[in-house]
């Protein structure tokens, strides 16, 4: 049993305590935009925000999270896909297969919230998600575009 606040809603779920948050999100709550890629916090496909911090949900036991903590998944990043990062992703035609992109977008959104003007080195250090199709340069260009627009960051 766990009480979680996901995308603004508080939800009771019946699961074993050690169930990773990823699988609670996917299987109990039914939000499948957050992906399973590796299960060992390597690839970042499962990235969600917990109180604004990009977190790999595949190794985070659900028991470690309280109802007070705000979890945001890709489905809750913006009401209709109009977060500046999402718009930049469309503008730059970033995704190829797209499977890693939920995690990429969540990582990028958290990065810019914390560091609105990241250097190339900052981006490389924070964006450690794996993309096998090879969208890295488009990801970087989209992040830099949003940073240049100054639409995100600590108010």
């Amino acid at each position, binding site marked *: 049993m766990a009480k979680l606040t996901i995308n603004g809603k508080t939800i009771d779920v019946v699961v074993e305590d050690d169930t990773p948050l990823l699988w609670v999100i996917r299987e109990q709550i039914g939000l499948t935009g957050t992906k399973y890629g590796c299960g060992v916090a390597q*690839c970042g496909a499962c990235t969600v925000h917990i109180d604004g911090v990009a977190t790999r949900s595949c190794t985070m036991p659900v028991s470690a999270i309280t109802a007070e903590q705000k979890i945001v998944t890709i*489905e809750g990043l913006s009401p209709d896909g109009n977060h500046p990062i999402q718009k930049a*992703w*469309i503008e730059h*035609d970033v995704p190829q*297969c797209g499977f890693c992109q939920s995690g990429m977008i969540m990582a990028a959104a958290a990065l810019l919230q914390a560091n609105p003007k990241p250097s190339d080195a900052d981006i490389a*250090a924070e964006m450690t998600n794996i993309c096998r199709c*090879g*969208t890295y340069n*488009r990801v970087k260009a989209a992040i830099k575009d949003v940073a240049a627009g100054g639409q995100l960051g600590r108010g």
Partner: protein
Amino acid sequence: MSLASVTDTKLSRRSMLKGSAAAAGAFSFGFAIPFDEAQAQGAVPEINAWVVVQPDDKVVIRIARSEMGQGTLTGLAQLVAEELDCDWAKVTTEYPTPGQNLARNRVWGNFSTGGSRGIRESHEYVRKGGAAARMMLIQAAADGWKVPAAECSVAKGVITHKGSGRSIRYGEVAAAASKLQAPANVPLKDPKDWIIAGKPLKRLDTADKTTGKKVYGMDFTLPGMLNAAIKDCPVFGGKVKSFDAAKIKDMPGVKHVLPVGDSAIAVVADSWWRAKTALDALPITWDEGEHAKVSSESIAAWLKEGLDAPQAAVGNQNGDVKGAIANAARVIEQVYSYPFQNHACMEVMNATALYTPERCEVWTPTQNGEAALAATAEASGLPLAKCEAYKIDLGGGFGRRGAVHDWVRQVVAIAKQIPGTPVKLIWSREEDMLHGRFHPVTQCKLTGALDKDGNLTGLRMRISGQSIVAGIFPQNIQNGRDPVVFQGLNPPGPEASIGYTIPNLLIDHAMRNPHVPPGFWRGVNLNQNAIYLECFIDELAHAAGKDPLDFRRALMKDHPKHLAVLNAAAEKAGWGTKSPEGVYRGICHTMGFGSYVAAVAEVSVSAEGQLKVHRIVAATDPGHAVNPAQIERQVEGSFVYGLSAALYGECTVKDGRMVEENFDSYQVMRMEDMPAVETVIVPSGGFWGGVGEPTIAVAAPAVLNAIFAATGKRVRNLPLKNTDLRKA
């Protein structure tokens, strides 16, 4: 309403709910209705197999090939829309199902999506589909106006009669057009007149990939569905000896513990996480079989023996190479090797199946829907007509999801044991790494003969190692010869030809097939062959005291297309000009999948041996460039895939099984490794080449040759992580 849009989950669920109220066999109702029956039921009629025009002018273009990130869906739609002269803003796409293709005498042709063949093999018939539909729509308008069709023109889906100035929209004449006979003679536009094809248009399928709405196979659900996790014997060829289901039957959510064939066990539970947790707790004893002692070392020793074995299949031969070597002023000889690699698609293998004694259906990400259907029929024991496979867009394919549908056979074997209950099988990443269809392992001995002036007079290449074709399509091996093993080394011709004229040449292959199952891995045999040839040519140039570009050019006079892309890459990169301080260049080229490609890499290597790839310039001649923006993305992505392989890619065999089980031990390239990539597209026309794969093959040799320029070290054994690059 699109009856075939299986990725529309709302429709899927609706159809399934509708079906579940009836007999289990009717589950498929809604999916399996062929388009012509759908039309009889009052749906919007198709103009032809490729084109549906709705009353609101929305154009639905049918796509037979699978979308896995490479952009084929957008490119193929562009080709159809170009000839259709419709409004691109109103284009959507849908997949016909494999069952529908069979039922209609394969009207959509080949579904196979590999070998970079989506556009290069279907451009003509899909364009004719679009052109024929345009002609029928115009004819319908002309009939209505009682004027000759020749007096009508069309732009963006609006037909105009020149004389009277009347106009009518496609959507208004679509129903009439659908009743007309298809034209017999369907001329196509000259590519120079293209306005939709050939343009750097954005992909059609991006929006849902930015919001989490896109449904991948892993996300697919059916009402009442259970979830399965699986373990196959980690030693290839091994079997299950015993398992103790009683130990886990009371664990949360567990419903079934099922053998799958004689080598695997699946746990079926209410959720996948519970299935996996129980599977991890299940005691299984394996009969590891005859390969339990095989290691990378034992395989390497076997391949090494093949380098000098008397028996080999010849791939390319001219002149007298023995004589050339015997008479050479200098002979250079080196041995290279290339390891096993896993495709490591971001989305692990998965499929959902529903079996009843009357029907079996599978939903899966596949590069070849028809092969998935065939696997479904075989594994279920039902005839093809009682089976269907629904394609879902892939979270990466790279060759893993094309030729072999092992995961489909597994899910059907599971579903068959719980008839009437839908079940989704998802592999763990560990299962995916242990049970890949691996990049083949090979070694190559190269012997070059130089005359006193440093001219190449002879080249001998002996490849020893694995044949993908022998592992997957053994019927295609003829007299012990695998033709695909010589990719990039073939005699002059339209496919995978060597770009050099060498007076005395012998390239042959001593086949050595270890027990590890091989697969077509993006770039296939071009990957290692380009490394072997292009790094060794670099060695020969160095030995001859010549510039690597000049040395190549001297051998390429009879290969103008190869030479043109090499020159394009060299020119854009500034070959021969001074590079930034501490930065060194390497160059290479190859030809395969119908296209000519070349690359220049700029690298530096620190005193600590740290490699940095700064910049890549890549040139490609695919004949026709259907979407330059998407070609750029394929070229950039090719460097991620190719350099991941070059830098890190290695699956090690120990005790008959793979050692690397996840991305912590099987590292791949991340953003910090990513160089700037400049793409030069030089389409020369007259042929149609692929773009998804050829550039993979130039990634590694360009970087390896640049590393030599930087350090004086030749890296002949991949991956690079095993080599200390510190200056000696």
